[in-house]
């Protein structure tokens, strides 16, 4: 592999990893407060893409010419808000009634919700792939040996900005601190007057909003979307979350980037047909040998 190729793959890997990081954050936050894997999270990502698909042609004509950038922001914010709402709604309707039940019950429900969104999506949107409208022109920047597209740059920049914003929310705001408290010890937090329900809703909203943005960013660079696209990306993002240590926010970001880079390099190698199996193999490997991930700490079951 030449040096140019190497850097090209690295750039592609970083921008791919940015998506994974955005989705992985949602998995990790929900796991932090509820200790459960929200299987339906990948499908929120898919819904984000479809919201972008439907909102773009309806909203963008109102923002002609120089206003287009404002239009893009409006589309993204609206998608985030709707995804957040949906995430909160799913938690309220499907998971909240089961909070005191065995974990397996919640897990199965999450699988059910995931399937419902996938095949409900297939029913509503149609099963065939759709081409995503041109929200931002995804053209190549510069003319050197390396190709970087505008979409890749935007995806990366937006991800970094969102990460900074998220860190601020979690570290500095009252709800963010409550979130950390619940994640540390839910019982103690509720005794200190933290409203657990509010925190959980907030967590789902935040995670789903990020997944929604990820959906749009992904669609800008990949252009076709379909109702089952959340399955693969969801599992990969989950792998990223586990890679970084589930429950750990910076870990999810690093895990996402790492997975993106690894995947692109495998995709560029002679094992390219196994590209989609890499995430799974990696996931199994980590869970077997270092289940706490790169940054996580091991927990001992109390007897």
């Amino acid at each position, binding site marked *: 592999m030449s040096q140019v190729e190497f850097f090209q793959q690295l750039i592609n890997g970083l921008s791919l990893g940015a998506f994974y990081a955005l989705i992985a954050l949602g998995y990790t936050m929900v796991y932090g407060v509820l200790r459960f*894997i929200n299987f339906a999270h990948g499908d929120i990502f898919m819904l984000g893409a479809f919201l972008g698909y439907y909102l773009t042609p309806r909203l963008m004509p109102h923002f002609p010419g120089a206003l287009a950038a404002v239009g893009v922001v409006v589309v993204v914010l609206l998608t985030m808000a709707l995804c957040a709402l949906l995430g909160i709604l799913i938690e309220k309707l499907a998971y909240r009634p089961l909070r005191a039940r065995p974990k397996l019950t919640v897990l199965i429900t999450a699988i059910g919700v995931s399937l419902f969104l996938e095949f409900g999506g297939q029913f509503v949107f149609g099963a065939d792939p759709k081409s995503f409208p041109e929200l931002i022109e995804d053209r190549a920047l510069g003319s050197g040996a390396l190709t970087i597209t505008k979409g890749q740059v935007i995806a990366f920049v937006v991800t970094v900005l969102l990460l900074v914003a998220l860190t601020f929310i979690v570290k500095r705001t009252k709800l963010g601190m409550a979130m950390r408290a619940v994640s540390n010890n839910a019982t103690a937090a509720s005794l200190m007057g933290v409203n657990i329900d509010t925190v959980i809703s907030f967590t789902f909203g935040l995670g789903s909003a990020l997944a929604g943005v990820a959906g749009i960013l992904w669609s800008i660079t990949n252009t076709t979307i379909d109702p089952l696209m959340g399955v693969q990306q969801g599992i990969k993002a989950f792998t990223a979350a586990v890679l970084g240590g589930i429950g750990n926010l910076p870990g999810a970001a690093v895990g996402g980037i790492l997975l993106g880079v690894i995947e692109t390099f495998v995709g560029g190698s002679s094992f390219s047909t196994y590209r989609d199996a890499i995430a799974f193999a990696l996931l199994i490997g980590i869970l077997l040998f270092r289940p706490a991930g790169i940054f996580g700490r091991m927990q001992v079951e109390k007897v």
Partner: protein
Amino acid sequence: MNYRHIKKFALLAAIILSAVVSHFSGGWNQYHLLIIITIGINIVLAVSLNLINGYTGQFSLGHAGFMAIGAYVSAYLSTEYGANFLRLFGGHAGALAIALLFLGVLILGGIAAAVAGLIVGVPSLRLKGDYLAIVTLGFGEIIRVIIQNTDAVGGARGYSGIANYTTLFWTFALAAVTIYVVVSLIDSTYGRGFLTVRDDEIAAEAVGINTTRYKVVAFVLGAFFAGIAGGLYAHINNSINPQGFDFQVSILIVTMVILGGMGSTPGVVLAAVVLTLLPEFLRWFAKSDLLDWLVRHAYQFLSPEHFAVAAAKTKELFESRMILFSILLIALMLLRPQGLFGALPRRKASR
């Protein structure tokens, strides 16, 4: 003869009954026969998964992967080497030679799947709940990707030209064997060990139960029968492809186990029957005059073009079994998590 032998007699009776019914099934509608055989295959799948998920409490989402291995191995063997094997019997390879060949490839497919079960069973020693579910799902998908990249069995295009050996007899005789194995296993002091692993691993180890071994045995045995089911499936469809064994299939089997009640073999058998027939029923209903009539009256206020869309969508809804299963799963968990026949929900000892 006493009550002790009742299980063996029931097994024998079920096998004979399968043979008799199979003998008379020659003139049946082929489509109906296919549905009945699918029921039998689903019984094998659901009862064997119930050993892992229900009795042993190891939530696996990888059953379709084991099924795929059994399907591909047995189909490959019977297609590539079947003719040579039958030639050993001279020009008149009769029913017996074919039976021998089929049983042989089914068992080899089962053994191949069991080896995969051993490989998947090992992580179950360290992982629980959600993690185990996602790892088994991953294993299932990896198996699929490997098959997709194996040219000897057609890769992503699929593998075709498989002989139609699966009959009603084979399907139900093997379903009976699966049920017999799981039921008699659980009904023994040795087999009760599976349940203790599910209920409380730490307590089980404290009374000397080797939980590691039980988990591995559950995975190996469950995978073996999933492999057999895969072999039956391959030899009725005459072509198979990797997409036919994706995670949706695993979830379908899991739904059967959950609906029937984790750890209840009769419940799971019944659920396998119901969940195989339900989509067929809904598909029939979607095409029926009754739905036409209902749609005509329900949507009469709509304009003609809206009416056409609404009517078509309504039909589509009834034909989409995955939406149905997802709603069923959520509703079951909210209303009756123990399934129709499952053990009581677990309660914590507290005062």
